């Protein structure tokens, strides 16, 4: 008897429809103790304040409230949560006005209703029917308490016709309150002959704003709805209503692309006729056709929204256009992430995320970063927690053009180091990937621009800054060194996590190809903190990739041998060569010769200590057979091949000449090409492992 709606209703996907079904109740349903009503009201309020109510919902709820089906207390409560998402149906308002005259609604609630109508007035889908009942509404003027609000509503509805149709007589005895005078002054404008009263020229502003209960909710809802807000409310009007003190975060909205109308007066009329505003172009063909006479939009920020415009921006080398874009973009980034301060803007990532994504795709499209995002990042990295919008921020970071080596430490390395050591494994991996991408981009720029001039490379097509080759090399060197330090410590901190190791090796794959692929004559070896964890990794892929990297370096150093005269130009010191040779010897001795821990290997452990460990044949424990990463392959191989000859399990037997070469082939067949290439380039001459055991 209490309520007819299904008891199992959940607050999930589409509960709202069923809630609405519930509301056109029969009159006289009790309110007190009716838990269903309460629950449904809460649901409606929640939806109203978060997303706003659809026109149908407004209709139903308004009818429910004004008909007083469940008494007067619910009526006010419903009115307070009637936040339209898009439009308010005119019929609903007219019906509600009719309910006003039934006379059961308390005056305070009547006032609340009129205030609501005033607040959402611009969202009412049409006004013709309301104007049709103008006279009906006019009658409420006699109600003393309602009068100010009714006057305001009439003021908004008044047309010349409506003035004629109404009798002014009722108004006069009521005194000269400002709201009446305001309305009368309007009447006087339309029909001066009908208003005999002399209106004082100085009327105190007649109508106050009655939007208090709804204003903030309405703004919030409209903000959330974004483009879906129907044309009934123009975007201009919502921004106008911005209260600067409670700053609405509108700085992330792209400006609408408009042509420079207001300045036409300033420019010579002769040139005016010919320019084509960018906003009028809709296809690439049109763009090409009008390339020579395109006019940039009034607000450069609007370019971000159109790929056609970006294409144009990419072509024109207009410094001030780019500067305007940078000012706007930098402003938006700073306001959103740096100046937000206590206002906690960082929480509303639902706006920041698409904004940054758009910025990233723009930079991707233009294949270079904006200088404002660069300047922003240098500041932001100092306050970033490393998790807010991580993929986007790291994406922006990887687009940074080459930083001069003198500044790179302060601008990039210091803040990144702090973040790196205090963040999770996933951040570490992300940063490694980001730095790898950064290096790749730097190298790509180098390979593109270095061709134009042997010494000077212009790093950014839109800019005039030149960087000498040695300056560029210094920066790259700094970056690689930095990543080496990060990686060494990071691997240590994370227990040589193979995911992190994989990202580190990605980076070194780029590094080892700096010359071969990008023509930058620079060799940087990985630090021991990277080399040994990779060599002793428990996953074969890491060892294989290390072998590949060493193989690539081998290629490079061999061509460096042939052209000894270039040594000076190549940042290669004897030390570097010694380091490389050392690594090669270690790898060969470890994986191949089973000669771990020999005196000249750099890995010196006391013999007594090694004996104490009681590892049998410790010198062989990292050869390709016993290496923890390959042991399973060795066992597998043993099972498949060796058991044909031997009954007992003896992995050492693989090291015999024939099985050894089969074993290598077996490994290669498993996809370890890095090892294959390493063996081919470094162990060509001596086919057999020196079996000491």
């Amino acid at each position: 008897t209490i309520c007819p709606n299904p008891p199992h209703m959940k607050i999930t996907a589409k509960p709202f429809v069923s809630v609405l079904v519930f509301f056109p109740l029969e009159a006289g349903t009790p309110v007190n103790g009716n838990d269903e009503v309460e629950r449904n009201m809460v649901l409606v309020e929640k939806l109203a304040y978060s997303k706003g109510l659809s026109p149908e919902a407004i209709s139903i709820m308004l009818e429910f409230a004004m008909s007083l089906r469940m008494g007067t207390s619910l009526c006010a409560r419903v009115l307070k949560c009637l936040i339209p998402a898009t439009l308010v149906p005119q019929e609903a308002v007219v019906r509600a006005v009719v309910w006003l005259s039934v006379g059961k609604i308390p005056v305070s609630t009547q006032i609340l209703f009129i205030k609501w109508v005033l607040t959402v007035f611009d969202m009412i889908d049409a006004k013709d029917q309301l104007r049709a009942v103008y006279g009906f509404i006019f009658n409420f003027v006699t109600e003393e308490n309602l009068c100010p609000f009714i006057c305001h509503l009439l003021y908004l509805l008044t047309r010349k016709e409506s003035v004629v149709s109404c009798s002014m007589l009722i108004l006069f005895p009521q005194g000269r309150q400002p709201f009446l005078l305001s309305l009368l002054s309007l009447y006087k404008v339309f029909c001066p002959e009908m208003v005999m009263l002399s209106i004082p020229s100085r009327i105190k502003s007649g109508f106050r704003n009655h939007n208090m209960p709804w204003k903030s909710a309405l703004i919030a809802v409209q903000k959330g709805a974004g483009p879906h807000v129907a044309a009934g409310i123009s975007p201009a009007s919502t921004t106008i209503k911005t209260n600067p003190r409670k700053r609405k975060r509108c700085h992330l909205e792209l400006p609408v692309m408009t042509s420079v109308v207001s300045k036409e007066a300033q420019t010579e009329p002769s040139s005016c006729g010919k320019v084509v505003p960018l906003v009028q172009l809709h296809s690439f063909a049109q763009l090409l056709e009008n390339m020579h006479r395109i006019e940039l939009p009034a607000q450069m920020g609007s370019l971000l929204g159109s790929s056609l415009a970006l294409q144009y921006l990419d072509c024109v080398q207009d410094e001030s256009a780019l500067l305007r874009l940078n000012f706007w973009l930098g402003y938006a980034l700073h306001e959103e992430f740096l100046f937000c301060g206590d206002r906690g803007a960082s929480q509303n990532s639902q706006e920041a995320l698409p904004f940054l994504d758009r910025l990233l795709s723009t930079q991707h499209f233009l294949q270079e970063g904006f200088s404002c995002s660069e300047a922003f990042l240098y500041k932001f990295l100092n306050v970033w927690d490393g998790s807010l919008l991580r993929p986007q921020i790291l994406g922006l970071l990887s687009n940074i053009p080459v930083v001069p080596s003198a500044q790179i430490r302060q601008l990039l390395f210091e803040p990144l180091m702090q973040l790196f050591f205090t963040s999770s494994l996933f951040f570490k991996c992300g940063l490694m990937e980001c730095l790898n991408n950064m290096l790749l981009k730097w190298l790509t720029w180098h390979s593109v621009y270095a061709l134009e001039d042997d010494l000077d490379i212009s790093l950014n097509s839109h800019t005039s800054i030149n960087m000498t080759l040695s300056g560029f090399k210094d920066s790259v060197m700094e970056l690689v060194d930095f990543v080496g330090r990060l990686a060494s410590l990071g691997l240590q901190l994370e227990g040589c996590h193979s995911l992190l190791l994989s990202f580190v090796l990605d980076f070194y794959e780029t590094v080892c190809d700096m010359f071969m692929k990008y023509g930058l004559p620079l060799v940087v070896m990985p630090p021991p903190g990277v080399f040994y964890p990779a060599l002793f990794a428990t996953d074969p892929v890491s060892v294989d990739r290390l072998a590949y990297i060493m193989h690539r370096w081998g290629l490079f150093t061999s061509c460096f041998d042939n052209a000894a005269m270039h040594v000076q130009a190549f940042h290669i010191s004897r030390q570097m060569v010694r380091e490389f040779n050392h690594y090669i010897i270690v790898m060969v001795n470890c994986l191949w010769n089973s000669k771990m821990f020999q005196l000249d290997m750099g890995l010196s452990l006391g013999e007594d200590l090694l004996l104490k460990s009681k590892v049998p044949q410790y010198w062989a424990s990292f050869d390709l057979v016993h290496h923890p990463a390959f042991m399973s392959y060795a066992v597998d191989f043993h099972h498949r091949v060796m058991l044909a000859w031997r009954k007992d399990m003896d992995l050492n037997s693989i090291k015999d000449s024939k099985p050894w070469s089969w074993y290598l082939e077996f490994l290669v067949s498993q996809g370890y090409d890095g090892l294959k290439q390493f063996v081919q380039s470094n162990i060509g001459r001596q086919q057999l492992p020196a079996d000491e055991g």
Partner: protein
Amino acid sequence: MERHQNRETRTPRNNVVVHRRRKSKSYRLSYRSGLGAADSRLGWSPALTARRLNTSRKAAGISNIAERVDPGQLALLVKTEWQLSYVTPLHQFRHTQLKSYARQLSAFIAAGKQQGLAVEVEGLQTTFRVSFSLVQGMTQSDEDAESVLVQIHSKRLFARQDEPQKPVWSGWLTCINGNPDYLRALPKDFVCLPLFGCSGADGLSALVKSWFQQSFDCCFGLLEISHTSLQWLMALWTNCHAESGIQHLKMIWTLPAAPPLQVTYTEAGENYIDIEEVTSFMQGLKSHFYRHFRLDLSAGSLNQVSTALGSAKYSGRMKISNSRYMITTLTLLTECALLKMPI
């Protein structure tokens, strides 16, 4: 007098500690001297973003701008409390076009009012007359662009002819002693007037700002007067005691306590505060509060400073009460506004 004018003052020391604890870490850390070279990609001089708040500045010089600036304009500038904003450089702004700007802005406001929500209907019965005017005599260096004053008067629909138009909104754009390197580095088609002050209805402020945004492709952002700048203003204003005497000095702190706590310190009478003493004065004040109320003021933030010469609030509201110190104050605020420039 001479003595004061020649003295260099330093940024009050004690703010350093305070700053590290405050949330606005971003603000302070965001200006690093090293940025220059990285930003010179646009062909600018490295100095462009090697910006930070000056650590020393001349004690308030008394300027006789009253002799140079139109008294009417000066009276307006002095008597009003302004809400400050920073503005990125204006593209294609011409000081010669002010008349046409006035027309355009009037039309823009009229259009905006048409579009507005019904709740601000009062505007319908009034029309607005906009005037742009140069404030001559304000600039201090050759690089500074001339300040511009914008005023909006309302005209009632049924106004009598002789009825004076009521000023309903006013605002100005200025640049006083702007960093010459920054100003020089900007291309010629930009005019840098980084400091914007306005007073009047919020709706009109928003309209004016959006007109400027659309016409000159610039951006407006709230200019908060940071803790450090507030202390600077206090130092600059109190240093001027010889001229006008400190009638009172009032400072308001907000402390991060639950419930929120506001500490007001009012110094009345003829207490002499010298510029060198500001630091020790602040220190003394803090230890006083700590000793007596167990309140560590450095944990909170200075929110408001007011003296007989002017008042400033963290929220960016500022009032200059004496025209003789206007240039000094505006120089500091211009500096703050330039610090907020995104590039």
